[in-house]
C-alpha cells in the first residue's frame, strides 16, 4: 500500500493535470538545454554550433520527453494522446476502404438496431415489470372457473379476507377491482367515463408506493362509515391532465359518478396500478364501490358469491410461491366444506405476478418471443458478417503489421490500434443502430388498439438491449480483428509473413470457418424470410377477403347507463329513446346495439353454454363460446346476413320465449349434418333455462388469429340485459359527419350517461386488425430483408476475398491457357457451395421453426408455397452475389495479375 500511494498520486496528477505535467517536462528539458548551451559557449563555441551540439547531445528533446512519459506509465496523459492518434489512424484506414466500412457499420447498425427495437417492443408488450419497488416480490391469486380454466382474479371480498388472514406467506395482500366511472370537478360537466381501481386500504402499502402528495388509505376506510370513506387518490396523470397539477386539489371535493369524493392524495408519476395496459386514473376504497357503480350491491363486501376482485400480494422474503399456493389450495378445500355449493370444484392458486402476466397474455408473449428470436437471428447474421469482413482483411493487413513490427513497432501499441479500429466500427454502427431502433419503435407505436377504456401500449427504447447488442457486435469485431492480428504480430510468424511476396497463405481451417459462417448466414436468412412470408400469407388469408361485416360508413359509440345507476327498465328506455333520436339524424340509415364489437380486444365476451345433444367431455358440464347481446337492428346495420331462420326481433323481450342465433360455424360444430333451427342450448349466467335457436347467421371475423368458423352466439339484449352497450350507426356518407349530431343526441337523451369513446368502424378495424397486420408483417418482412442483405454482403465479401487472394494464381492459369469461362466456373463453384449448404440447412431449420410457430399462431407454418418462393429467391440472389466478383476474376489480365506485388 505504501508503495502504491505515491505512484497513484503521480499517475492521477499526470492523468488529471496532463497539461501542467507536459509544461513542467518542457521546462525541465529547456533548463537543461540552456545550461548545456551556456557551458558550450563558455568553452568558446559559436552560439549556433553550441545550440546544435547541445541538441545532438540530448538526442532530441522529443525523444527525451517521450522516454519520460513512458517512465510515468501507460495511463498518463499520453494515453489519451495516443488514443486520439489511434482514432485518427483508424478513421484514415476506414475511410480508405469505404465499401468495407459501410458494410461493416451497416451490419452492426442493423443487428444492434433490430435487437434493441424488438427487445424494447417486447418489453412494452409483456416483460416490463410493474412500476413499483421490488416488482419481483409480487404474487397474484388465481381461481378456476367452472369450465376449468384458470383466471387471475375472480375473487369475492370474503374470499380475499380469508386469503389475507388464513394463508401464511404474504407480507400483505391487497384486493383490487376495476371501476368505470365518470370523473368531474363540478356536477354540470360533460361526463366521460374513466378507468379506476377500487382497492383495499393496504393497496399502496403492499405495492410499496407512497403517494407524492397527501396520503394513501387508512385501515378504517375498509368499511363504509357514512360518507367519510368517500375519499380518492388521483393518479399523477389525472392530476396533471384534469386538474392542471393544482396542489389545492388535495382535500378538495370532486365527483365520481356524480357522488362527491374528497381527494386525499396523489399517486406517484408513472404508477399505473396493477396493469400496464390499463392505467388507472384514480383509486377509491373498495367500500365505496356500490356508491359509484349501480350494478354493485350495497352488501357486496360480505357476499361470498360476488366475484370480480383481483388480489395482489407481496411475498415474505425467502418464501417460495409454490408453498403459498399449496396453502391457498388447502384454504380452498376448507372453504368447500364450510360453504357447500358455492365452492364446488373451485380451486385457489398463487403465482408470481410476472408469470401470471405471461400466462394471461400468452398471445403477446408468443409474439414477443418470436420478434426477439428473429432479431437475435439478424444480430447473429450481422456479427458473422462483421467477423467475416474483418477476418477477410486480416491477411491483407498482415504484411503492413509485420513490417511495422520488424522496424521496431511496439506490439502492444499495434494491438491497441487494431482494437481501436474495431471499436470505431462498433461505435459508429451502434450509434446508427440506435437511430434504427428508435425508428422501429416509432413504427410500433402505431400498434395501439382503439379502446373505449384507454388500453395502451407504452414502447420505450430499452438501453439494456442496445448495450447487449453493442457488446455482441464489439466482441465479434474484436475477436475477428484481434485474433489474426495477434498471430501476425508474433515474432515467429514475422519472417514468414515478410518473405511471402503475396498475401500469406490462409490455412484451410480458416477458410472452412469462413465458408461455414456464410452458410450459417444464408440458413438463418432463409429461416427469417420463411417466417416473414408465412406470416404475411397468414395475415393475407385472414383479411384478404375482408372481415365479413360492414366496415365503411359505420360509427360506434359505447355507453354505460349503469354508471348513473339506471335499472334494467330505465336502461331499455334510454337506449330506445337514443336510437329514435339517432335515426332522426340526417344521413343515418340504420342503428343497432351490441355488447361486443367484432375484433374488439378488451372485455371478456365469453358465455358459458351447454348445447342440447352435444356430448361434452367427461367432467365438464359447460362450454365457453364468444357471444354478443344484440338488438333487432344490429345484424342489418353491420350487414351480417341471416342464412336460415330469422334474426332478432323487437318482440324478443324478457316476457317471451328465450331465443338465440348461432353462426354457421357453431351450427356445424354442435349439430353437424342437422339443421340447428329449433335446437336448444342452456345459457349459464341468466336463469340457466333452455334457449331455442331461431336463426343461423353468416360467419364473420370476430377475433384475430381465429378461424372464421369459430362458434359465435347472438342473444337478444332485452332477454339478457346488460347496461354497457355499443351503439352502431350506419350512415349514407362519411360516418364521422354523424359524430357531432350523435353526441348531441346522447346529451339530449340524458347528459349524465357517460360515453366511453366514439370512433368510426373503419378506424376501429384499422387499429385492431389491419394495423397490427401491417406493423407485424412490415416488421418481420423488414427483418427478413435485412437478414438477406447482410447474408448477401457476406457471400459477396467471401467471394471477393477469394478472388483477391487468388489473383496471382488465376493470372498464371490464364497465362498458361486457362479460359475465362473456366476461371469463372472455378471461382463461382467455390462461392456457391456454402450457399447450397446454407439453403439446405435453412430449409430444415425453417420446417422446424414453422412447426413451432404454427403451434402458437394457427395457419402460419411454413408450407410448400412459401418455400417455393423463398428458396429460389435466396438461391438467385446468392448466385448473383458470388457472380459479380467471379466475373472480375474471369476478366483478369494475366499480365497485370502477374506483375502485382
Amino acid at each position: 500500500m505504501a508503495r502504491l500511494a505515491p505512484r497513484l498520486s503521480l499517475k492521477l496528477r499526470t492523468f488529471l493535470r496532463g497539461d501542467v505535467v507536459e509544461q513542467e517536462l518542457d521546462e525541465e528539458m529547456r533548463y537543461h538545454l540552456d545550461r548545456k548551451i551556456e557551458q558550450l559557449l563558455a568553452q568558446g563555441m559559436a552560439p549556433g554550433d553550441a545550440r546544435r551540439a547541445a541538441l545532438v547531445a540530448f538526442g532530441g528533446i522529443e525523444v527525451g520527453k517521450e522516454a519520460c512519459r513512458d517512465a510515468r506509465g501507460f495511463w498518463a496523459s499520453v494515453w489519451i494522446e495516443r488514443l486520439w492518434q489511434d482514432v485518427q489512424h483508424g478513421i484514415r484506414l476506414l475511410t480508405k476502404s469505404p465499401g468495407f466500412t459501410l458494410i461493416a457499420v451497416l451490419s452492426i447498425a442493423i443487428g444492434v438496431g433490430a435487437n434493441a427495437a424488438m427487445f424494447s417492443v417486447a418489453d412494452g408488450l409483456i416483460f416490463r415489470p410493474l412500476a413499483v419497488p421490488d416488482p419481483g416480490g409480487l404474487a397474484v391469486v388465481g381461481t378456476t372457473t367452472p369450465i376449468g380454466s384458470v383466471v387471475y382474479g375472480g375473487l369475492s371480498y370474503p374470499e380475499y379476507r380469508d386469503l389475507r388472514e388464513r394463508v401464511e406467506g404474504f407480507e400483505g395482500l391487497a384486493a383490487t377491482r376495476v371501476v368505470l366511472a365518470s370523473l368531474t370537478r363540478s356536477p354540470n360537466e360533460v361526463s366521460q367515463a374513466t378507468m379506476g381501481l377500487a382497492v383495499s386500504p393496504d393497496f399502496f402499502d403492499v405495492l410499496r408506493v407512497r403517494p407524492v402528495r397527501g396520503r394513501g388509505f387508512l385501515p378504517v376506510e375498509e368499511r363504509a362509515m357514512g360518507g367519510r370513506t368517500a375519499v380518492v387518490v388521483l393518479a399523477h396523470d389525472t392530476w396533471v391532465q384534469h386538474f392542471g397539477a393544482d396542489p389545492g386539489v388535495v382535500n378538495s371535493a370532486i365527483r365520481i359518478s356524480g357522488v362527491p369524493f374528497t381527494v386525499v392524495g396523489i399517486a406517484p408519476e408513472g404508477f399505473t396500478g396493477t396493469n400496464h395496459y390499463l392505467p388507472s386514473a384514480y383509486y377509491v376504497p373498495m367500500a365505496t364501490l356500490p356508491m359509484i357503480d349501480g350494478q354493485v350491491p350495497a352488501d357486496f363486501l360480505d357476499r361470498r358469491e360476488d366475484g370480480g376482485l383481483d388480489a395482489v400480494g407481496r411475498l415474505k422474503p425467502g418464501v417460495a410461491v409454490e408453498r403459498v399456493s399449496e396453502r391457498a389450495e388447502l384454504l380452498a378445500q376448507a372453504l368447500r366444506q364450510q360453504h357447500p355449493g358455492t365452492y364446488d370444484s373451485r380451486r385457489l392458486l398463487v403465482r408470481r405476478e410476472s408469470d401470471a402476466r405471461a400466462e394471461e397474455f400468452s398471445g403477446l408473449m408468443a409474439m414477443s418471443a418470436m420478434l426477439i428470436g428473429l432479431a437475435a437471428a439478424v444480430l447473429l447474421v450481422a456479427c458473422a458478417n462483421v467477423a467475416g469482413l474483418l477476418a477477410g482483411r486480416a491477411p491483407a493487413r498482415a504484411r503492413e503489421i509485420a513490417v511495422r513490427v520488424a522496424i521496431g513497432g511496439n506490439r502492444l501499441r499495434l494491438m491497441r490500434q487494431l482494437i481501436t479500429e474495431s471499436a470505431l466500427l462498433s461505435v459508429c454502427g451502434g450509434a446508427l443502430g440506435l437511430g434504427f431502433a428508435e425508428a422501429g419503435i416509432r413504427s410500433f407505436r402505431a400498434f395501439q388498439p382503439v379502446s373505449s377504456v384507454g388500453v395502451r401500449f407504452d414502447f420505450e427504447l430499452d438501453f439494456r438491449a442496445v448495450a447487449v447488442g453493442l457488446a455482441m457486435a464489439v466482441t465479434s469485431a474484436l475477436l475477428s480483428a484481434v485474433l489474426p492480428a495477434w498471430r501476425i504480430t508474433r515474432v515467429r510468424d514475422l519472417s514468414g509473413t515478410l518473405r511471402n511476396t503475396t498475401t500469406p497463405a490462409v490455412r484451410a481451417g480458416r477458410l472452412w470457418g469462413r465458408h461455414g459462417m456464410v452458410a450459417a448466414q444464408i440458413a438463418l436468412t432463409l429461416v427469417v424470410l420463411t417466417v416473414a412470408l408465412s406470416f404475411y400469407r397468414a395475415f393475407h388469408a385472414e383479411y384478404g377477403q375482408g372481415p365479413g361485416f360492414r366496415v365503411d360508413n359505420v360509427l360506434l359509440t359505447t355507453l354505460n347507463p349503469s354508471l348513473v345507476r339506471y335499472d334494467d327498465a330505465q336502461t331499455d328506455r334510454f337506449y330506445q329513446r337514443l336510437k329514435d333520436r339517432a335515426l332522426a339524424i340526417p344521413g343515418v340509415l340504420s342503428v343497432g346495439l351490441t355488447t361486443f364489437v367484432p375484433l374488439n380486444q378488451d372485455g371478456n365476451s365469453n358465455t358459458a353454454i351447454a348445447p342440447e345433444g352435444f356430448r361434452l367431455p367427461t367432467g365438464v358440464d359447460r362450454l365457453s363460446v364468444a357471444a354478443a347481446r344484440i338488438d333487432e337492428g344490429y345484424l342489418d346495420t353491420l350487414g351480417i346476413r341471416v342464412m336460415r331462420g330469422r334474426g332478432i326481433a323487437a318482440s324478443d323481450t324478457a316476457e317471451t320465449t328465450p331465443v338465440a342465433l348461432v353462426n354457421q360455424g357453431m351450427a356445424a360444430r354442435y349439430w353437424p349434418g342437422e339443421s340447428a333451427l329449433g335446437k336448444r342450448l342452456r345459457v349459464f349466467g341468466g336463469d340457466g333455462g333452455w334457449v331455442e335457436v331461431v336463426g343461423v347467421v353468416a360467419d364473420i371475423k370476430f377475433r384475430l388469429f381465429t378461424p372464421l368458423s369459430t362458434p359465435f352466439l347472438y342473444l337478444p339484449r332485452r332477454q339478457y340485459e346488460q347496461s354497457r352497450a355499443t351503439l352502431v350507426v350506419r350512415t349514407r356518407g362519411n360516418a364521422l359527419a354523424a359524430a357531432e349530431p350523435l353526441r348531441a343526441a346522447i346529451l339530449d337523451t340524458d347528459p349524465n350517461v357517460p360515453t366511453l369513446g366514439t370512433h368510426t368502424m373503419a378506424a376501429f378495424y384499422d387499429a385492431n386488425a389491419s394495423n397490427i397486420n401491417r406493423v407485424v408483417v412490415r416488421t418481420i418482412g423488414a427483418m427478413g430483408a435485412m437478414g438477406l442483405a447482410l447474408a448477401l454482403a457476406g457471400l459477396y465479401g467471401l467471394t471477393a476475398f477469394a478472388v483477391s487472394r487468388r489473383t496471382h494464381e488465376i493470372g498464371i492459369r490464364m497465362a498458361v491457357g486457362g479460359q475465362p469461362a473456366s476461371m469463372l466456373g472455378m471461382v463461382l463453384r467455390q462461392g456457391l457451395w456454402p450457399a447450397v449448404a446454407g439453403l439446405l440447412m435453412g430449409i430444415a431449420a425453417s420446417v422446424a421453426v414453422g412447426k413451432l410457430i404454427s403451434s402458437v399462431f394457427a395457419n402460419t407454418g411454413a408450407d410448400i408455397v412459401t418455400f417455393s418462393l423463398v428458396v429460389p429467391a435466396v438461391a438467385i440472389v446468392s448466385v448473383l452475389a458470388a457472380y459479380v466478383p467471379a466475373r472480375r476474376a474471369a476478366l483478369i489480365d494475366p499480365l497485370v495479375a502477374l506483375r502485382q506485388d
Partner: protein
Amino acid sequence: MSRPTDLVQGTLDVLILKILALEPMHGWAISQRLAQVSSDVLRASEGALYSALHKLEYEGWIEAEWAPSENNRRAKYYSLTRRGRKQLERETANWTRLSAAITHVLQLERG
C-alpha cells in the same frame, strides 16, 4: 525487472540515488556531478538520465520540487525519499556483493 539488460539502467539508477543522497539537485547538476565524480568515465545520455529520474520518481524513491536555481531560474530539484534511502542501501549491498564476486572470478582466471 530482472532482465539482464536492466544492468546498465539499474547502475544509472544507483548512481543517481547515491548522488542525491548527498544533497537535492536538479537534472543538469546531476549530469555534471556524474561526469565529475566518475572522472568522465561514466556519462549518461540526457534522454536516459531524465527517463531514469522520472522512473525513480514514479517508483517513489525520489521526489521533485520546483525551486530557484543558482542562476535564478526555476529548476526541478530532486531529493531522496526515505524509501529511496533504503533502496540505495539495498542496491549498494547488492553491488558490493556482485563486484566482489566478479573480482573474485576474474582473479581465479588469472591464477
